[in-house]
Structures are given as structure tokens and as C-alpha cells.
């Protein structure tokens, strides 16, 4: 046994300088999704981070190459399951761009109103989940209560609360219900009120602010080069919103502001989301005011739109037409197109390749949070472990979308 009072050389007294490896995830209570982050730590500082995704990969693009164009709607629902309506509309617009059709005005307003409701849901849940991961459970309950109001509206309109599969090429599955406008007009102010109450619990909380302010700063140039879009890019100070830069549907008739951050830290991302909820409420109000009460929802093209159920059951022509659309699919002209819309997280793109048959040849989804999540590595390098949680939360990574 060695004597305890042996002389040690100076060098041996130093702490071991080997970096420590720490594994966060894939299933971690404080993480925003199923993601694994392998951290290389020096003390508590992150020296290197490796973000590993793919735990929710379900082969979306491969599945799309097998069914008809219409059968893709349930799949896109499940890509971003927090705001499925925006994905539905985005995909419908992409196919309509290839077909060269435009849906009637009433349908455009309907799509805008439903899509913006979904956007409120998306932003709210992101903010709520982020607070919850930071230990503030109560605001999440306020936001979940508000989400319930929106989901009730969706349930009334589409019949489903989460995955609606409500979009169709050339229209929507059903026209608005009789009391759609009343429901939304009554619901949105209550949602905004609940959000303000939830915010009151957070924005004067020193702990919450300290963990957000100045943490996870992303510069404007880096955000652009990383392919960031949506709220995270705007929080870095780039006023790029697809709804404003390349207006689609009726967004050019809407009056709304694009909230922009200054420093691009977690606080800016949080506040941009909160402000965008209020701007979204403005858009919904205008859409409801301008939306006609009468008029068709679907385009009138028997090659694209299914005949009314009444006719399918009573006439042979409609039965055949129904059969051909369901079994063979809509014939989309051969070629390729890239269509982009502003989804909850940013620019949601669909790159479609058609060979002229009823089945897509290739469906490529450009999920906004795939690009966002790849910036996480840069954001958390140099920070401490507890900073990973709010930084990751503020990026709003949606597993289903990110992992296709």
C-alpha cells in the first residue's frame, strides 16, 4: 500500500482534461422531440455537439410514390401533426400549381382562416412546451386550454381534432358549416385572452427571462446560410415571410405585420412567436369579414373533383367518374414543380415530379424544421448543458416533419 503522504508531482494534481461524453435523448423528458444529442463536455461547457435525428422516420417520400395524389393528404397531416391544416393546404396548392387550377375565392378564404387557426395552435404549443421544459408547467395548461378551443372548431368543421386530412386537390372535403364564422369569432378572442394570461405568468419571471435572454444567438447571415425560414429567421432580423414575399391565395389582401427580432436569441424567437399569434388573429378576422357566405368551395372539373355522393349512388355516370378518380387517381400533367407556403415553422416546400399518371413519381417535402434543427449544433456549442433545453425548445422541432 502506498503511503498517503507521498510526494506528488505538480502535473498530477490537475484535473483530468479529457472531454466527457454525454448522451441526451432520444427519449428525454426535457427534450422537445425524439432527438439524440451527443455532447462533448469540458466541465459543463459544450465543446462539440452531434445532433442525431431520424427516430421518427417513416418513409414518407417512399410511401407517396405508391398511392394516388389524393392519398397523400393523410401522410402530410402526419408530417407536422401540430398544424396539419397548413400542410394539407400546402400540398393541395402544389398539386393545383401543376394542374393549373385555382380554387374558388370562398375556398381560398376558408383555407386561409383554417390555416391561420392551425398556425396559432402551432406557435402556442411550441411556446407552451418550451416553458414546460423549463419547469413552468402552468402556462402550458393555459395554452392547452386555448388549443382546446381551436380544436373544437376544427372538430366541428372537419370531424377530426388533430389529423384532419381535410384538404383536397381543387377544394376542401366539405364546405364551411353554417356557424363557422360565429364559432371562430367567438373562439379567437378567448384564445388571445388565455394566451395573454399565460404570458403574464412568464414575462416577468426572472428565471424564465434569464434562461432566454442572450442565449442561443444566431446571426442574420448564419441563419440565411443555414436555410432557416419562418419565425426563427425573422427572430434573427430577416423580415422574410412567404405570405408577404410571395403572396399565395388571398394573403395579398390581408393587412398584417411581420414581427422581426433584433438579436436572434431565444427570447426573440419566443416573442416573435407570441406576436405572430396576434397578427394571425388579425388575418383570421379579415378573412372572415371578406369571405363570401355563398358560392362554391370546389372547382368545377369532373376530372379532379369527386361527384356529389347523392349522384354517385343514383347515376351510373357519377359512379364511373367516382371510381376512376378513386382508383386511377387524378391525372397530373408530366413535369416538375416546386411550390412553397408559409407553414408553422417556415417555408414548407413540395417538389413534385409527375410522369403524367395518377401516381406521383416523386414527392419531395422540404420540411422547414429540418433546416432549423441542423443549426442547433452551432447554437449550443459553447453553451452550458441547461441552455440546450430552452434553445432546442425555441426552434420548435417537430419530429414527424424533421424526420420525414
Amino acid at each position, binding site marked *: 500500500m502506498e503511503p498517503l503522504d507521498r510526494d506528488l508531482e505538480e502535473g498530477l494534481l490537475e484535473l483530468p482534461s479529457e472531454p466527457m461524453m454525454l448522451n441526451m435523448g432520444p427519449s428525454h423528458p426535457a427534450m422537445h422531440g425524439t432527438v439524440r444529442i451527443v455532447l462533448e463536455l469540458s466541465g459543463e461547457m459544450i465543446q462539440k455537439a452531434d445532433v*442525431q*435525428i*431520424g427516430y421518427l*422516420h417513416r*418513409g414518407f*417520400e*417512399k*410511401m407517396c*410514390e*405508391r*398511392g*394516388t395524389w389524393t*392519398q397523400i393528404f393523410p401522410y402530410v397531416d402526419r408530417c407536422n401533426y401540430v398544424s396539419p391544416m397548413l400542410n394539407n393546404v400546402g400540398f393541395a396548392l402544389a398539386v393545383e*400549381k*401543376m394542374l*393549373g387550377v385555382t380554387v374558388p375565392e370562398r375556398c381560398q378564404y376558408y383555407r386561409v382562416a383554417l390555416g391561420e387557426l392551425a398556425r396559432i395552435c402551432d406557435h402556442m404549443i411550441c411556446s407552451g412546451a418550451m416553458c414546460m421544459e423549463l419547469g413552468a408547467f402552468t402556462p402550458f395548461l393555459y395554452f392547452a386550454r386555448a388549443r382546446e378551443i381551436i380544436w373544437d372548431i376544427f372538430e366541428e368543421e372537419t370531424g377530426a381534432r388533430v389529423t384532419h386530412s381535410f384538404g383536397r386537390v381543387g377544394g376542401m372535403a366539405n364546405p364551411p358549416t353554417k356557424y363557422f364564422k360565429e364559432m371562430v369569432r367567438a373562439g379567437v378572442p378567448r384564445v388571445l385572452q388565455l394566451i395573454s394570461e399565460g404570458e403574464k405568468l412568464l414575462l416577468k419571471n426572472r428565471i424564465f427571462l434569464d434562461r432566454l435572454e442572450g442565449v442561443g444567438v444566431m446571426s442574420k447571415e*448564419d441563419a*440565411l*446560410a*443555414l*436555410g*432557416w425560414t419562418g419565425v426563427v429567421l425573422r427572430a434573427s432580423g*430577416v423580415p*422574410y415571410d412567404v405570405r408577404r*414575399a*410571395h403572396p399565395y391565395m388571398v394573403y395579398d389582401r390581408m393587412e398584417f405585420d411581420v414581427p422581426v427580432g433584433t438579436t436572434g436569441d431565444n427570447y426573440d424567437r419566443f416573442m416573435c412567436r407570441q406576436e405572430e399569434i396576434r397578427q394571425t388573429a388579425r388575418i383570421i378576422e379579415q378573412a372572415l369579414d371578406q369571405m363570401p357566405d355563398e358560392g362554391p368551395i370546389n372547382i368545377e372539373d369532373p376530372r379532379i373533383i369527386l361527384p356529389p355522393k347523392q349522384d354517385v349512388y343514383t347515376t351510373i355516370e357519377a359512379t364511373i367518374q367516382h371510381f376512376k378518380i378513386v*382508383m*386511377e*387517381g387524378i391525372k397530373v400533367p408530366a*413535369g*416538375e*414543380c*416546386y411550390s*412553397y407556403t408559409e407553414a408553422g415553422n417556415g*417555408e414548407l*416546400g413540395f*417538389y413534385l*415530379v409527375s*410522369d403524367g*399518371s*395518377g*401516381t406521383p*413519381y*416523386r414527392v*419531395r417535402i*422540404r420540411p422547414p424544421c*429540418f*433546416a432549423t*434543427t*441542423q443549426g442547433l449544433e452551432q447554437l449550443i456549442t459553447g453553451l452550458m448543458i441547461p441552455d440546450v433545453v430552452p434553445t432546442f425548445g425555441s426552434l420548435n422541432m417537430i419530429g414527424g416533419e424533421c*424526420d*420525414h
Partner: protein
Amino acid sequence: MSKRVLEILKSKFGADIYETHSQFGDDTAVVNPEKWREIARFLRDDSQCAMNMFVDLTAVDYLGRQTPRFEVVLHLRSLERGHRIRLKARIGDDDANGVEIDSVVPVWKGANWFERECFDMFGVNFKGHPDLRRILMYPEFVGYPLRKDYPADKTQPLVELRNVPDKLPPFGIDEGMPFGRQTHDYPRGEETN
């Protein structure tokens, strides 16, 4: 607006721009894969193009439809000028030899994960990529799932499935997809599980 970009490209690179079109309003240039990175860098740095936003990078497999077999597709946007362009390069032969192209990570670092995904799904080898490994699939995965000759019903469980009699495997062949383009429409590579 972005027709101009196509004209600038044609006047600058001439014969390296194989063809251009503007189908559905999307301006597209098919370029020489050898000049892939050079053209990308020009598009970013030229003041009239200024494509500083990396949007998307993916590939399409045209097995049996065109040679070269793969098309690498890059979408770009300019923040200041608001125009977009699609850049394509055709690579690889029918047996998937020579499926390689220069990486554009040195030009836009956002291309990193997109190229990894493209490598993972199509086996496109990006020369000069700093960290080319699988991203969505697990490292033990064999093959490239989005290639047209990869059967859609093939399963590669990471943990061996238990062999329990009277129990069906998780998915039958073409389950739930009795119509549309079928797996057996494509030449089959190897035995499915």
C-alpha cells in the same frame, strides 16, 4: 424576373448549361455536374443573382427512364431580389456507378444535412462533404431506400424479429396499397425479408 438569372448563367457558362426551361413558372437550368460547385458559387456571389438563401437539395431517381440515372436538384432563393432558381445535374449510370458530385457545403453550410439526407436516401456521394454519413436511417442499414429499385415493402429490422408461429410479420407485401405503382413494377434487387 428570374429568367434573367438563366440568361446570365447562359452567357457566363455557355455550353455547361445543358438546357433550361420554365415549366409551371419555375426557372430551371440543367448544368454540367463537373461545374456544379463553380456555378453554385457564382450564383451566390454574383451581385445580379445573389442567391444567398439555400432552400432545398434533393435527388430524383429516373431508373429506366433516362440516363444518367440520377438528378440532383437544388433550389435557391435570393433574399434581396426575391427570385428563385432550380439547378439540376444528371449523374450516374443505370447500375448506380459514378453517382458523385461536388458538395456545396463550402458555398452554403445549410446544405450539410440536406446532402447527408440525399446520401442516405439515394447514395449520392458528395465530394468534399465534411461529414457524410447516414442521417435518417441507422448506420447498419443496407441500401438506399428512395432508389426506385429498392422494394418499398422490404424490412430491415435493427433487432431481429422474433420467430413466433401463427404470427404475421408486421407488414405484408403491398399491404393496403392494392393499386397505384407497385413494388413489382420495378426490377427487384435482392430477396426481401
